[in-house]
Each structure stands twice: as structure tokens, then as C-alpha cells.
């Protein structure tokens, strides 16, 4: 095994080691901690870019831990989808860490370690080929996300984090029940081996295994924020600090990823498709209503995330490989867009202290948001151009999330609709979904226009104190989206290959079980 093969485990080991080292550095050495953490994140970005470049030749990279062959040992599997999601996580981490340098990383303890452990859990969950290992990495990322949700303290954050922790602990127990049921029937935890064993099992046993996978799916739906299991999401994300919330945008995608991987591998996309589609559409509808009813920008961002989750789940359930490819494009774009929006919100909120009070009153009357004013530490110089930048970035985020041209949110939705409507089967559901998707775009446009008018035109303007290091990550994420639009053709080609491999997982199974 050459050194290049070890690249597959690097996205897990690198943040884990960096996070542990960061624990040893005293909190007073802010600069050293920041440099180490950002350096590790940049290295992770490079590794992830290499993984993406190598993905597809061969189709699937398998890394047996401790060189134990597949059904007995745990394997890490890097195919196109895993590599892409690792890269997405790395991009978000670099942006969030960069943003935190202005203020957030000094507010509490161990911010950098928490981010690094979160990355280790995320990357492990994306790369693993073993169900129980998936559970362990889920717990790793959840444990760090509990810390990050609480980061910065305060009554509101603690209250919402309490809900978040309890819901996710209960979901983790469901996850365990599902894993135990599957193991009881199939006698294996390896995802590829599972497919082989289940194919050869008695019908009664298979039913039990399907129940197990159904219980697993409920756990994944909680993580993805699917209706009716996603009520915790918007308040928790709204209460979290800006860099943490930006990182959390990919947490829902872990649930979506797990559904996509396991469902296509084990069921081949056949049974349960309608259930997935209905859950997705209900989430989409709930997110749309939530966006319209949002009294604060943070709640708006949280519901935009729910819309993206719902769209993805429905797209996976409804369509074939083409719809999955379009869904993956939408996944990348919407994650980047909402993350940029979460970062932007904090900058925008600095500019509208006066308006925020009025809003807080109406929000109280409706009982929708439980926002509390937070003592803000003024940072940076007054830049007159900052307001122009903020409003342009706000416009870009709005276009991205609503899915309007010229930004790639439009391309993602358009590709999704054309893929779904081109397919013959289940036309009624496909049309309903298309209608819902268009309605959600309209709702997002209305919500963003209303919020934009209120923030940038309505309230008396205060020139916000914004530092370059805070504007740069927002700008970088948005430029990345614009690049995805310009380079849509190669990006879609990559995603179509990824989706084709997911829908015909022979290469995955062969590569994993060969060793």
C-alpha cells in the first residue's frame, strides 16, 4: 500500500490530531491557536481537493483500517460523493474559522478544538463503509456540535442547545436500535456485505432488517431536519454563534448523505421511495411556511436550510440518477449559500440596532423567535463601503436561496425539475413537487425582499463596523457559488458520474469486498 492510499484516512486523522494538539495550547495564545487551526483546515482543504481529483480513477478508493479485509475489519471508502462532501466540509471550515478570527474564537474556550473534532466526525461519517462506525462518527460530530451550539453561552443558547441535545440523543438511541436489528438479521455491519447477506436472507428475516433500516431512516431524518422531526433545527441554528451556524449547515446534509448512501445501496432505490418523497415535500412545505413567517434573519436562514433538506430528500425519493445528480448540485450550492447567509447575518445585524428592537417586539407577540439582544463587542473600523458590500452580499444570498438566475441556485433547481419531469413514472408526484419547489422559491423571494427592505431601507442606518477578515469568507463563499455557475458543465459531469455510481453500486461492492 503506497503513501497515496493513506490519503483516504487523512481527513479523519488530520483534524483529530490538530484538535488534540490545540487542547494543549493555552487559551492565552490566541494567535498560535488560530494559526494551527487554520493551518490544519487549509491542509484538510488540500487533502480533500486531492481526493476529489483522484475520485473516479479507480471508481472507489477503499482503505481497510489495520489492513483487515472488508467484512471483518472496518473500511473507509472514498468515492466521488464522499470526496465531494469532505471538500465541502473543508471549505465551510476554512470560511468559518477565518470569520471567527475577528471576534468569536476569543469569546469562549476551545473553539478551535471543537471545530476540528466536528470536522473529524463529519469526514469520518462521509468516508466510512461500516454502519456502526457511522454511528461512532455521528456521535463524535454531534458531541462537538453540542459544544459549538452552546459556544458563547447565554440563556437562549443554553435553552435551545438543551432541546437540540435531547432530540439528538434520542435519535442516536434509535440509530443504535436500527443497527442492532440489522446486525441481528445480517450478521454484518459492513454496508457492502450487508447488501449481499440481505439478498440471501429468508423473507421473514428481510422484513426485520427492513424494519431496522426504517428505524435508522428515522434517526437520519431527525439529523436532516425532516418534517415532523425537524422542529428543533431553526431555533437552535438561530441561537448558535455565526461561525458555528455556518458550519452546522452541513450537519443536516450528513443525514441526507446517510439516507442517500444506505437507501440506494440496500434498497436500490425501490421500496420506500414514496415515503421519502412525501417526507421531503412535507419538509419543503414546512420550510416554505417558516420562511414566510420568519421575524428575524436568523430564523429565515434556519428555514432556508429546512427547504434545502426537504428538496434533497424529495429529489432522492422521486428521481433516478439524473435527479440525484441535480440534487447534489443543489446540495452544494444551497449549503454554501446558507452558510454565507449565516455569516452575513451577524454583520448585517450590527447595522440595525434600532430596527431590531421593533422587530423583537413583534416577534414576541407571535412567539416565533426567542431572540435576545447580545452585548456586542465593537470590532473593526468604520468602512463606508461596508454597507454596499453587505447589501450586495445579501442580494446574492437571496438569489442563491430563492433559486433565481444568474446564480447557481437557479441551475440546481432547473436541473432538478427537468430531470424529474423527463421521467415517465409517478408524474403526479413529480408535478406536485415541482409546484412546491416553485412556490418555495417565490416564498424565499418574498421573505428576502421583505427582510432586505426592512434591513437596508427601513431602519435608520448605522455604518456597521465590519472587518476585512469577516467580509472575506462571505465573499469567498459567494464567489465559489458564482464559479460553480460558470463551471457548471464540469461540475455536473462529476456529479452525474457520482450519481450513476450511487444508483449502480456494483463498483462500490466489488472494490469493498475484494480485499
Amino acid at each position, binding site marked *: 500500500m503506497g503513501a497515496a492510499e493513506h490519503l483516504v484516512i487523512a481527513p479523519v486523522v488530520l483534524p483529530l490530531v490538530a484538535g488534540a494538539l490545540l487542547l494543549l495550547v493555552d487559551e492565552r495564545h490566541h494567535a498560535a491557536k488560530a494559526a494551527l487551526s487554520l493551518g490544519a483546515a487549509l491542509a484538510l482543504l488540500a487533502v480533500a481537493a486531492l481526493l476529489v481529483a483522484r475520485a473516479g480513477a479507480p471508481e472507489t478508493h477503499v482503505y481497510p483500517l489495520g489492513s483487515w479485509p472488508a467484512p471483518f475489519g472496518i473500511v473507509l471508502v472514498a468515492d466521488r460523493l464522499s470526496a465531494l462532501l469532505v471538500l465541502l466540509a473543508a471549505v465551510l471550515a476554512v470560511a468559518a474559522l477565518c470569520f471567527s478570527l475577528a471576534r468569536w474564537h476569543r469569546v469562549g474556550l476551545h473553539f478551535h478544538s471543537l471545530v476540528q473534532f466536528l470536522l473529524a466526525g463529519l469526514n469520518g461519517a462521509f468516508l466510512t463503509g461500516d454502519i*456502526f462506525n457511522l454511528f*461512532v462518527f455521528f*456521535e463524535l460530530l*454531534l*458531541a462537538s456540535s*453540542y459544544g459549538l451550539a*452552546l459556544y458563547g453561552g*447565554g*440563556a437562549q443558547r*443554553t*435553552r435551545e*442547545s*438543551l*432541546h437540540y*441535545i*435531547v432530540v439528538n*440523543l*434520542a435519535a*442516536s*438511541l434509535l440509530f*443504535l*436500535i436500527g*443497527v*442492532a*436489528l440489522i*446486525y*441481528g438479521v445480517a450478521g454484518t*455491519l459492513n454496508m457492502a456485505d450487508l447488501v449481499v447477506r440481505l439478498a440471501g436472507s429468508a423473507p421473514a428475516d428481510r422484513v426485520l432488517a427492513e424494519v431496522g433500516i426504517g428505524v435508522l431512516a428515522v434517526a437520519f431524518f431527525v439529523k436532516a431536519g425532516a418534517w415532523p422531526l425537524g422542529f428543533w433545527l431553526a431555533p437552535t441554528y438561530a441561537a448558535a454563534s455565526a461561525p458555528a451556524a455556518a458550519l452546522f449547515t452541513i450537519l443536516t446534509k450528513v443525514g441526507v448523505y446517510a439516507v442517500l448512501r444506505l437507501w440506494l445501496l440496500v434498497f436500490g432505490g425501490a421500496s420506500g421511495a414514496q415515503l421519502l418523497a412525501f417526507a421531503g415535500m412535507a419538509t419543503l412545505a414546512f420550510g416554505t411556511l417558516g420562511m414566510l413567517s420568519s421575524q428575524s434573519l436568523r430564523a429565515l436562514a434556519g428555514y432556508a436550510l429546512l427547504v434545502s433538506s426537504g428538496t434533497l430528500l424529495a429529489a432522492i425519493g422521486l428521481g433516478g440518477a439524473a435527479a440525484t445528480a441535480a440534487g447534489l448540485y443543489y446540495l452544494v450550492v444551497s449549503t454554501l449559500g446558507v452558510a454565507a447567509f449565516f455569516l452575513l447575518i451577524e454583520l448585517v445585524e450590527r447595522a440595525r440596532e434600532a430596527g431590531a428592537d421593533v422587530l423583537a417586539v413583534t416577534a414576541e407577540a407571535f412567539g416565533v423567535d426567542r431572540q435576545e439582544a447580545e452585548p456586542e463587542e465593537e470590532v473593526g473600523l468604520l468602512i463606508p463601503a461596508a454597507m454596499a458590500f453587505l447589501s450586495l452580499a445579501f442580494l446574492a444570498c437571496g438569489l442563491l436561496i430563492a433559486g433565481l438566475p444568474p446564480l447557481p441556485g437557479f441551475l440546481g433547481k432547473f436541473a432538478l425539475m427537468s430531470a424529474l419531469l423527463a421521467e415517465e413514472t409517478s408524474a403526479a408526484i413529480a408535478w406536485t413537487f415541482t409546484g412546491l419547489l416553485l412556490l418555495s422559491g417565490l416564498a424565499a423571494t418574498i421573505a428576502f425582499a421583505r427582510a432586505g427592505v426592512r434591513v437596508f431601507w427601513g431602519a435608520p442606518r448605522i455604518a456597521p463596523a465590519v472587518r476585512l477578515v469577516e467580509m472575506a469568507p462571505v465573499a469567498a463563499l459567494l464567489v465559489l457559488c458564482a464559479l460553480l455557475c460558470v463551471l457548471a458543465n464540469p461540475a455536473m459531469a462529476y456529479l452525474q458520474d457520482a450519481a450513476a455510481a450511487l444508483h449502480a453500486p456494483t463498483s462500490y461492492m466489488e472494490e469493498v469486498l475484494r480485499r
Partner: protein
Amino acid sequence: MELVIALGIGVLGGSGVWLLLRPRTFQVALGLSLLSYAVNLFIFVMGWVRGGRAPFVAQGAPVDPAAFADPLPQALVLTAIVITFATTALLLVVLLAARGLTGTDHVDGVEDEE
């Protein structure tokens, strides 16, 4: 034996769910603990209930799998126990912080109006 364990899991799980749905944070924490015991037992039982059998084999000797217990669920249970223990400890800290910050042990941070 199966019946006793199944009833045990049922009672633990039922009590856990009931406590989880209660409005006090301490009840919720206890409920999650009971649920995790039920789930741990459930994982354990997935390796079948057989008494007096070792989960490991002697080196070199011919092996009859039927004479041994499945070691994997035991390893899984151990991992699950450690993880739920750690996360429950974290939950207790957050619970105490919420109690201190909001002045009530209601899960929503405000008392019900009655």
C-alpha cells in the same frame, strides 16, 4: 429467559419514553438514561441469549461456532455505553447551566401557566 429480557427491555424502554416526555429536565435526563439501558440490552440480545458460553475461542483448536457467544454485540454494547455515558454527562452539565440561567428546571426555560 428470552421473555424475561424482552419484558425488561420493554419496561425500561416504556419508562424511558414516558420520562422523556415529561416537562422537567431531570426527568428527561433520567428518561434518556433508562432508554439507553433498554437499547444496550437490546443490542446485547441481538447476539442471541445463550448462557455459559465464552465470546472467544482457543488458538489452534477446531472451532464450533455454535458453542460460543457472538463477541461483536458485546463490543458494540461497550462502545454504546461509553458514548451514551459521555453524552449524558454533557447533558447534565447543560441541564445545570440551563437551570442556573433560566431559574427553572422546565425544559422550555419558562413555567407552564396553570
